[in-house]
């Protein structure tokens, strides 16, 4: 364990010019089976980071935050702690938050690198969410490929289902199980030639008849349709405005790339409203992680799906020759009932 050698408080607002090339992404899964194993990796990770003047963020369970704070002692003041429950809300939102965090801390040379402890939340997720959160972990490898970030994702092997831990081995290029970190032999890159992460859309078990409409270039009519249909399914207010905005963006893309027409299907499925926007076009590239990659600031396009992923609870993109579908999921508030 490395001890902090300096007692000077680090002023996070003070710009510190750094020289030399910034290190690129390191993305590791920490498979731990107890407090000792958790701390023996995360404590030096934080302290070394502070020594190197990296920004350090720890997003983990309440219990792990308490452990880590205690173990770090004075140094804990220089680490930013966030409860994982608040941070890991939806894959799109979380990716966006990490992106903004990296941007904020590395812009203008404030820090050469950020170090993140990021422990995703798996309990209470259904099969669809588990799969998408696993894909999220895979997308991190692409989304932050060019970023000076060292991300360690703890997985508690005592409580997590076997397939979640197996997923961690496939989504992280490196594993930490004791020292030292090693290459994961099960790693499957996000865009590998086996299409490891593509998955066709599953049929949606709808409560009641789905509402379907075709659209052309008059998106005003489509927006009015979606507003009405969403209201019938229990989506109102701010959430309805998010859905209409998202559908409009996807439909605008569809008009541009999909031959000027498409179809929207809305239905309620349990506690979700599921909305498919389909067009008869072909996607030029890989599909499933569209919108997970931060758009280049100067770029004209590419912001649409990035925004849509952060406005909806889950987003799936699926393309087969001659048909592209973007599926938007919104979680209804617990009290919501159809027709309200």
């Amino acid at each position: 364990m490395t001890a902090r050698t300096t007692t000077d408080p680090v002023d996070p607002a003070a710009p510190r010019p750094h020289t030399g090339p910034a290190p690129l992404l390191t993305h590791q899964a920490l498979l731990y089976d107890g407090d000792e194993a958790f701390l023996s990796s995360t404590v030096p990770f934080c302290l070394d980071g502070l020594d190197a003047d990296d920004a350090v963020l720890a997003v983990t369970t309440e219990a792990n935050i308490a452990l880590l704070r205690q173990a770090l002692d004075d140094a804990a003041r220089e680490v930013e702690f966030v409860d994982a429950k608040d941070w890991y809300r939806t894959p799109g939102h979380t990716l966006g938050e990490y992106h903004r965090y990296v941007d904020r801390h590395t812009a203008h040379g404030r820090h050469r690198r950020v170090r993140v402890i990021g422990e995703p939340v798996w309990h209470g997720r259904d099969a669809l969410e588990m799969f998408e959160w696993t894909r999220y972990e895979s997308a991190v490898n692409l989304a932050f490929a060019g970023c000076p970030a060292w991300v360690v994702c703890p997985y508690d092997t005592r409580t997590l289902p076997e397939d979640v831990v197996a997923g961690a081995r496939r989504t992280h290029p490196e594993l930490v199980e004791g020292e030292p970190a090693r290459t994961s032999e099960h790693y499957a890159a996000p865009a590998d030639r086996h299409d490891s992460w593509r998955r066709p859309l599953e049929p949606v078990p709808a409560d009641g008849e789905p509402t379907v409409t075709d659209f052309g270039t008059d998106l005003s009519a489509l927006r009015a349709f979606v507003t009405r249909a969403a209201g019938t399914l229990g989506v109102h207010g701010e959430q309805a405005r998010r859905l209409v905005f998202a559908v409009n963006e996807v439909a605008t893309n569809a008009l541009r790339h999909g031959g000027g027409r498409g179809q929207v299907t809305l239905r309620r499925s349990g506690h979700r409203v599921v909305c498919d926007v389909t067009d008869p076009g072909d996607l030029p590239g890989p599909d499933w992680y569209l919108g997970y990659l931060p758009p280049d600031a100067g770029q004209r396009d590419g912001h649409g799906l990035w925004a849509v992923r952060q406005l909806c609870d889950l987003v799936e993109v699926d393309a087969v020759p001659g048909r592209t579908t973007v599926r938007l999921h919104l979680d209804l508030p617990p009290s919501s009932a159809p027709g309200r």
Partner: protein
Amino acid sequence: MIAYDTGERAVHEAGHGDHLCLTFTDDAEQRRVVTAYLLGGLRRGERVMYFADRNEPEQVLDWLRRAGTDPAPALADGRLTVTTADDSYLAEGPFDPDAMVAALHQEVADSLRAGHTGFRVSGEMGWALRDTPGAERLGEYETKVNEVFAGRPASAICQYDARHFDPAALHDFDRRHSGSVEQEPLYSSSTLRLVPSFRDGQPSLRVIGEVDHHCAPALAGALEGALDRPGDIVVDMSGLQFIDLAGVRALVRTAERLPAGRHLHVVDLEPMLGHVLHVVGWDQVPTLTVTVREVPA
């Protein structure tokens, strides 16, 4: 048409009961509104009065001629009066709001008794910027005079030149009226209108209706024009019903082109759209400020 009531009225829709404020920044805009308002009154059989200040009465009559109407017959039989404030209500001494309101009441009554269908009056208010005795009571007058028009077959347009009145005064006078005259839209379609306006006495662009892939270029064009004028750009979103990312991008790109020291203020934006700006990172543009409005859940 887009149904959205903001108290702004196109000049051809101005009529009985209105006491409107025209805040203008160029002579052409003043001429357009005055010409339409005076001729509209004559066409409807109303008695029409005009109090000039910076313009000569002859200039105003010339506007009517150039619009294809010879004012001579209406002047001869009393349907039209064009004079100056100095030669009429300011001639007898200090400006007196109560006397002015009483005089206008009388004019309305006389007009109706003489068989006119109504009464309309418009005045240039530039005299208030000179050392005119009683000018400090203009605000009081603008409030009191509403009773002359409310619910009666009479209307008025008071003209304030934004090149000479300061923003705080403009805002104060404007809010004392029952509404304001809408400036000529820069763009108008069945779903969107882009209207130059004044907000808190500052020039602004009102975006009314929906901005999507069809009309985002129109918004970009309107903003392009605003870039060439000095000062900050205010974009008033209180009448916005929808804007897509392309429309938001047009705002951001305009802000990015402003030189340091100038800002683009997006005001009255729906909170959800403020969130969209945040998630795409456009809230980091230093020349862009966004004010979101409270929306009931």
